[in-house]
């Protein structure tokens, strides 16, 4: 009888028999992962709609002609401005991991420093996007209005601009939310909330979100500006 009981106890000590997290991560971090998975489905839905509409079109506007300006450069410079935007976002992802790394060492002032750089990167990206949207709007592009011709010279439908403003807008909204979250977390760092708590796990959670925003941009960049 006693041997049987101990055998049952033996079986129940595996990670999947309850009583502890089989994933060995904190609850909030796991739920951030599942939120990001759902968000990945949302962005995929938007980008796949873009792909389906593009594949259903005989011709499509040429991104090198649409996106060929930057502040101070009036045309003839494809990819330059979006290159700067991509660089800013990758840089801010790096400063975010550096904040996480400093958090592991519980180095409060370093966490604060890298969070500030991440927030600055976020604002810089949003400013670039604001400039690009304004520039395209001045050229006559908006939801429901497409001044750009197709590659073959025919008049384009508004699919291109509708999808561009919807997808980059939705991404920009994510960046904006990320900046707000980063600021909240940064204030908590300054207030010493995580120092009292004994760990900087919140930096990791907000970091996951921030990297996801960078990840989405990698795909938006490829499908809107390169392909």
């Amino acid at each position, binding site marked *: 009888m006693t041997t049987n009981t101990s055998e049952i106890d033996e079986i129940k000590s595996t990670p999947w028999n309850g009583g502890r997290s089989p994933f060995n991560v904190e609850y909030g971090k796991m739920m951030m*992962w599942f939120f990001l998975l759902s968000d990945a489905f949302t962005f995929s839905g938007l980008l796949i709609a873009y792909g389906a509409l593009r594949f259903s079109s005989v011709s499509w506007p040429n991104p090198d002609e649409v996106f060929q300006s930057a502040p101070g450069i009036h045309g003839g410079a494809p990819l330059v401005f979006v290159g700067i935007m991509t660089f800013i976002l990758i840089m801010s992802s790096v400063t975010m991991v550096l904040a996480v790394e400093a958090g592991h060492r519980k180095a409060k002032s370093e966490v604060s420093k890298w969070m500030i750089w991440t927030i600055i990167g976020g604002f810089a990206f949003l400013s670039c996007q604001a400039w690009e949207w304004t520039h395209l709007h001045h050229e006559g592009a908006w939801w429901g209005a497409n001044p750009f011709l197709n590659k073959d010279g025919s008049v384009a439908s508004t699919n291109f601009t509708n999808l561009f403003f919807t997808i980059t807008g939705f991404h920009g909204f994510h960046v904006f939310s990320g900046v707000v979250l980063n600021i909240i977390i940064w204030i908590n760092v300054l207030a010493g909330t995580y120092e009292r708590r004994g760990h900087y796990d919140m930096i990791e959670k907000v970091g996951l979100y921030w990297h996801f925003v960078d990840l989405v941009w990698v795909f938006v960049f490829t499908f809107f500006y390169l392909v």
Partner: protein
Amino acid sequence: MSADQQNIAHHDEHGSMTKKKIWGVFWVLLGITAIEFFIALVLIPRGVLSHPVGNIIYIGLTLLKAFYIVAYFMHLKFEKLGLIYSIIVPLIFIIFFIVWMLYEGNFWMHIRL
């Protein structure tokens, strides 16, 4: 319980990114982006690569960048296998949806022509 705590401490020791590794990943991401620019601004305009071939390379490089961001910056590579699978396996639905909708889009174009 103490074994559990030991396990978490052990996990952190091996999983955390050092500053050197972080900058290593940064240079990889920057390098891949530079290659994409080189293809778009030099190779395709000069006719070294055709547009369809360039597009396939862009998508391959994009997935590579996505791998580096998710595996190292988001730290997924160092999580438990169960968590890795529960995040990666559902993405099969996205691949299915891509194939389905691009095929469908192509079909619409042939109806229009």
